[in-house]
């Protein structure tokens, strides 16, 4: 029975459709696995009652030969997504026991397609972090460990709970959100596929906002096909989000096996960083070779403004966050710590409600938007952002997609980087550019490093061309034949 948790999402969906097992069975298998894996701290809220109720409904549909593309498949939801009647706290104390009376568009679409909800997944507070050490509810521990060591490793962030849960077979797939790499980096750290679609492909309605112009939802899954299947469900225009794109959702799944013959893959020279581990460099070359073997033409391209991307990101994202998080003031919902007057109530609520990293980013964001600094920081960062988008546009004259490493290193140990925020921010160096330019990017597991930890390769595509990302990602997956799993220790 426990084997059911080892299935990919696609395998599970077809097994369910063929009535090889019931949704109740596969849901129960996952709930049991979750119970045994609480030490990973991947789930913040488990929703077994809801899960069984949804599973039974799915089984009834399947029995009648009905059901959607994810019918009966149990998945996990990042705690940033509002789910009607389920506690949603975005990994923060300030939201207290907040239970939204409404549903995010993305989760509504998943339920409509038959997915079963197992629970809410841990994350860095308000999606700010690259290691999940910023969760107010304790860090998530990666199921992965370095060879010969039992030191706790970070699962990446901010969708660290999602990554750990999928990697440890605590759900078939999970939703994530990606503002600067928060889907792709944890996917890379845990040997999974993580897809951030084009900005506007998924509605942001009902997702707790971090940085509105960068935030995008996407899946973290075991395979490229799973990511395509799940993104197909999550995507689509939503009139409740003015920035969502009114475009039809293509057949992402069939794109995964598309031939790459004649496709041009760009290798951006600026992504070759000083001090980058040789293993990463080697893997990148290996990936290039795999794509060449698959029939791609490899071209060198230049994205000259890449080095400004991270600083620009760490201005734009905190600026938006400082404003987006103003609503957590203790007045209408969530936690409130009363003071002597209004201002002290605000101060106490926010000082105690937000964690250190969130406070730091609110301070940075407030600073860069202040009178006298706005032009030097915010406006300049926006100009950099435009330049980065232009870099990509120029690159698309030469190639159809870009291949880069996903991260500059493999996962690190808990506490190893957490005292140096700038070092931590460097985790996003290869991923933020896609957010700044609004482009789709996928991370595909490609190899283990010398210590036995997974490494990922990233494919960045043109706006609205997720299909090419899936096609290239699928080819990389087939070539890499990455099938390593974390050895169970929990």
């Amino acid at each position, binding site marked *: 029975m426990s084997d059911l948790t080892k299935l990919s999402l696609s395998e599970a969906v077809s097994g369910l459709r063929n009535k090889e097992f019931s949704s109740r069975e596969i849901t129960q298998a996952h709930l049991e696995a979750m119970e045994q894996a609480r030490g990973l701290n991947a789930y913040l809220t488990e929703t077994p009652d809801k899960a069984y109720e949804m599973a039974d409904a799915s089984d009834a549909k399947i029995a009648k030969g009905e059901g959607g593309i994810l019918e009966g498949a149990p998945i996990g939801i990042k705690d940033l997504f509002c789910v009607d009647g389920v506690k949603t706290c975005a990994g923060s104390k300030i939201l207290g026991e907040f239970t939204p009376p409404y549903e995010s568009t993305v989760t509504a679409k998943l339920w409509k397609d038959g997915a079963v909800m197992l629970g809410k997944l841990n994350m860095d507070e308000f999606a700010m972090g690259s290691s999940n050490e910023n969760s107010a509810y304790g860090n998530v521990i990666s199921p992965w460990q370095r060879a010969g060591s039992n030191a706790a490793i970070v699962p990446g962030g901010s969708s660290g709970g999602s990554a750990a849960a999928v990697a440890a077979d605590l759900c078939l797939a999970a939703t994530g959100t990606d503002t600067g790499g928060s889907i792709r980096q944890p996917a890379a750290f845990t040997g999974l596929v993580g897809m951030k679609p084009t900005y506007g492909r998924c509605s942001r309605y009902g997702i707790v906002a971090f940085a509105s112009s960068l935030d995008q939802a996407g899946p973290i899954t075991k395979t490229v096909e799973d990511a395509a299947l799940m993104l197909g469900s999550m995507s689509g225009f939503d009139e409740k989000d003015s920035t969502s794109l009114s475009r039809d959702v293509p057949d992402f799944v069939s794109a995964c096996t598309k031939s790459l013959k004649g496709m041009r893959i760009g290798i951006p020279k600026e992504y070759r960083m000083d001090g980058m581990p040789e293993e990463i460099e080697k893997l990148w070359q290996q990936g290039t070779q795999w794509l060449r073997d698959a029939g791609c033409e490899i071209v060198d391209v230049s994205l000259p403004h890449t080095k400004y991307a991270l600083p620009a990101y760490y201005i734009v994202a905190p*600026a938006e966050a400082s404003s987006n998080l103003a609503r957590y003031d203790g007045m209408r919902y969530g936690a409130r710590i009363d003071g002597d007057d209004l201002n002290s109530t605000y101060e106490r609520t926010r000082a105690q409600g937000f964690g250190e990293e969130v406070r730091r980013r609110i301070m940075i964001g407030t600073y860069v938007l202040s009178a006298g600094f706005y032009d030097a920081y915010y406006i300049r960062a926006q100009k950099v952002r435009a330049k980065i988008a232009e870099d990509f546009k120029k690159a698309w004259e030469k190639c159809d997609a870009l291949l880069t490493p996903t991260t500059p290193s493999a996962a690190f140990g808990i506490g190893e980087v957490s005292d140096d925020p700038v070092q931590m921010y460097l985790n996003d160096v290869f991923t933020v550019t896609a957010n700044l330019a609004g482009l789709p990017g996928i991370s595909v597991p490609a190899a283990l490093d010398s210590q036995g930890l997974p490494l990922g390769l990233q494919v960045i595509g043109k706006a609205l061309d997720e299909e090419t990302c899936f096609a290239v990602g699928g080819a990389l997956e087939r070539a890499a034949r990455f099938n390593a799993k974390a050895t169970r220790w929990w």
Partner: protein
Amino acid sequence: MFTATRIADKKDWISGATGDWEIIIGLEIHAQVASKAKLFSGSSTEFGSEPNSQVSLVDAAMPGMLPVLNEFCVEQAIRTGFGLNAEINLFSRFDRKNYFYPDLPQGYQISQLYHPIVGEGEIEVDVDGADTIKVGIERLHLEQDAGKSIHDLDPNSTYVDLNRCGVALMEIVSKPDMRSSAEAAGYVKKIRSLVRYLETCDGDMEKGNLRADVNISVRKPGGELGTRCEIKNVNSMRFIAQAIEYEARRQIDIIESGGKIDQETRLFNADTGKTRTMRSKEDAHDYRYFPCPDLLPVKLSQEYVNSIKAALPELPDAKRARFVAEYGLSAYDAGVLVSDREKSAYYEAVAKGNDKKLAANWVINEVFGKLNKENIEIENSPVSAKANNSIVKMITDKTISGKIAKQVFEICWNEGGDPVKIVDERGLKQVTDTGAIEAMIDEIIAANPEQAAKVKDKPKTLGWFVGQVMQKSGGKANPQAVNQLLRSKLL
């Protein structure tokens, strides 16, 4: 930066200990868009509902909620922009103005700082029905209203009503082109009239649907601009005038006694007629404006803007010009009639098929006079425009005299009814039958032979006979006929 080239009329100068001063006034008017739904949510905007009964998840700033622009409000802003003879910006954008307050759930107000939807314009403003001045418009932008904080329900807490939160406002910013409280009042009246003509705002100042913040500074006539103070929340024409008079005097007194004006925001107290410091420049918020990332820029096509322009109603200035040119009315009368959309519509209904000047006099003197006296709005007039149209028609075709017409109007006012029927049933028709009039005259002459004899020497005494005949006829005798007959008999 603003400049203020026009120097105030001498009559508007204020004399101080060191000489004369002039007041420089600019206004920011907040006009609530006449929209059933809020600017970024579908909540109702109805006034006077149960507190917090018109609050959507978006208005309450629940986590993950997003604003969606109400296109109707955009259209109203453009219409109003045309009314202000202003430039319509095909590209505009919403910005966030960040500050903390319990009646501002998002922690920011969505407004338009950098790229307003309407740019510069200019309107003509009547001052006390005598002068006309031009007032420049700096901009019009769309923004959300905040909720309402209620401090007086409980001594220890503040209650918050979010019904108003998110309601669409048009902020209309003038240039500092006014020099007296009368000019400022004229400006507000003109803006109110315009938005009511355009039906983009109901202009109801009592409900706070049209509110003004007044920027005031003083200077020696034609001299360098002084430091300005902003007076918040001045919610009636009368208070605007009061606040300006008080504030100008306060500033002059400070400067003349060697002090300096602090640039600050002041609050008008309607009970005392005074202004007091609300917050100084040092305490001014740093609003950290930046483009709202949840909303796309508003990009308008020229065709769309043109189609809005094509659908505009006739506005007061054009209407007045037409009344003068086509109807031959005086500029003053035309101004009175077009000052309000309802008034002008009422007049046009009365004038239809009648003599336009006669109708104008009738409406201004009789109808508006009575309404003013009874303090009734034209919309609630007990006598309809249709009834007045009949009355004026009967005056024109001499069915009744002007005097009887007033009587008929009174009857309609008090009892209602169709004026034609009233005239008919009560026998108020003018007597034009010369035979009948002659009989009456003969009777009166016979009864007053001495008086009749005097008329030849003193023709002015003829009036006495006219009066007698009119009295005898119950006012129904045609005065012209009476005059003619009397003259032929007595002179």
